[in-house]
């Protein structure tokens, strides 16, 4: 049994900032710039900043696509930016489930057709990527980028 008072190991996680933005591509730049300025202030390197910006753009565009498929008017972006890492969560409320691994492969095998570019990119740009599917309710992608090299995780 894990010591239950060791709350550093599993801790509550609430994003520092959660915003809901309209399902419109014009919003992508605004959110990206807002997070970009935080990264700038914390001294993230240009390369890491660029990766985060690209990842966020991809995730938001995917969320806008999927959310708008079900006529949802907003998407949600949660963010925590600190001196250790930048954690982003983009949620659409379309609730469409999919197999991210398949779409990733889709992008790898050229002749299979279009699609999967977003997931393919996210995986390469970010250090950690998780998808949370609540069927018929919401789909979230959580992306983590460390300021420095990420900690080693077995199986990585």
């Amino acid at each position: 049994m894990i010591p239950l008072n060791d709350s550093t190991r599993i801790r509550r996680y609430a994003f520092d900032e959660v915003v809901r933005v309209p399902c419109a591509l014009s919003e992508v730049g605004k959110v990206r710039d807002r997070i970009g300025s935080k990264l700038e202030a914390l001294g993230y390197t240009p390369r890491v900043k660029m990766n985060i910006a690209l990842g966020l753009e991809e995730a938001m565009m995917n969320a806008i696509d999927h959310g708008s498929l079900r006529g949802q008017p907003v998407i949600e972006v949660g963010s925590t930016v600190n001196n250790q890492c930048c954690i982003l969560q983009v949620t659409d409320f379309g609730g469409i489930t999919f197999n991210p691994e398949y779409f990733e492969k889709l992008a790898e095998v050229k002749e299979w057709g279009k699609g999967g570019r977003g997931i393919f990119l996210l995986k390469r740009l970010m250090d950690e990527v998780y998808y949370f599917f609540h069927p018929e309710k919401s789909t979230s992608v959580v992306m983590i980028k460390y300021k420095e090299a990420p900690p080693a995780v077995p199986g990585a």
Partner: protein
Amino acid sequence: MTQDAVDRKNGAALTPAQVDILIYTWRQICVEEHLEGVFALLVDSARRLTDAEHASIALIEGSKLRFVGSTREDQAARGNVVVPLGAGIPGKVAQDGIGRRIECGDYVSPVTRINAPPTHALEHRSLACVPLKVRDEIIGTLQVYNRVGAPKFDENDLEALQVLADHSSVTVERLRLQKNLLIESSRVRGIFQALTDGIMVVDMSGNPVLYNQAVEGLFFPDGKQNFALATYVSNVIRSGETSGSSEVVLLKPHEMILSNRFVTIPGTAGNPAEVIVSIRNISDQRAIDRRFSQFYALMLHKHAKLIRRAWKQKDPVQKRKLLRRQKESMRHLISLTELKSGPLRLERGNCSLTDLYSKVKANFEGGFQRLGIRVEDSGLLSHGQIAGRFDSSRMTLMFKTLFMQAKRTLKNGEKFIWNAVPSAGRIELFVGLHGAGISEHVREDALDWNAQVDRIISGESTSLDLDLAFLGHMVHAHKGTITICRDSDDETSIKVALPLG
């Protein structure tokens, strides 16, 4: 305690010595933490209170009465004596809650007033047994045996014994419940830890209250902290539902798919207080689904490509070829769907493999002659009719697949050889493909479609040949075996063994 307090309605009163013993006993009970210690204390006090030779205590367990303590080092002290409720004096007392006595070797039932059984059959000269009650519920009995210096236990003895029983029964019951709870709790914790599913209890702020070893394994394989679990819990709690399920793909770096169910437990005020989440690693199950998805994806893309090529093709011969391949591709898709639905279903009937072979061969004969491929099947046909219980349509497909394989891979002057070796209840078919570089076309791992898809994904190969892989499934469904052997660069043999029954 005053003397008045212990005076009873029948006029019996406790002696000062008995009161001292009772007070001492209760003081000791207050500091005793273990049930066994309380039993020892009670039987010793009961013996001393009544000047008995010895005493014992028994507790009800379901429909039985188990002796759990004794002043003697006997079976009763070890908890090995169990009697049904209603059997013997303690059993009767435990059943109806009425105290009973043996006086001067005689037992008179307080219920029937019948004097029984005969004196010589009684084990004890004198006995007094009183019930242990919590409120009105009987939980056991306390009994003393053989009054020292007197033929029977008097009213004072009985009164003192009943007072001891009345005032200690609550403690006994509480300690017994506590002991059972500890056992139950330990058992539940054992189950909790042994579960392969992760179980986690978190409060509504996401703080962990409890989680088991499987959670540790799922999220901290090497004891390292990561954000996966924190965001995971956060997502579950954020859903704000009383119960539900979700699926998580920890794409990077864990490469793991988790499925969870969660239930929100209300607090005393009815507001959500805790969330219990069960988490299952479904990566392996999903891997099978993924494999099928990949096959579907591969085959559908190839199918679409074929149709595009056929559509553009002007040469009617080439067009027919492409359309034939399209038909094969469709057949594969159907086979795949069939396999995905579960084990292949067979419609077995009596049929002759020789006849099926001959029919298929007749269809291919013209094409083989044009291509100059030589078929040598005397080793098969010389055995006459090879009959058994098979699914004739699938066996026909097996022969077709093998002929098509030969047609596709062999060239002018090359040989396609059939041999059969029948044995008791079994037939072994040897299909030889002799042609230049045949081992490159018919690979030993052709039966393993996973290997083929892996090669395509890794870019090692661009073609997918599922014919033999599907053939393998058909043979296995007939409880047969199939192997591909590379005899040399130019010789490959496919061995199919089938039971005839």
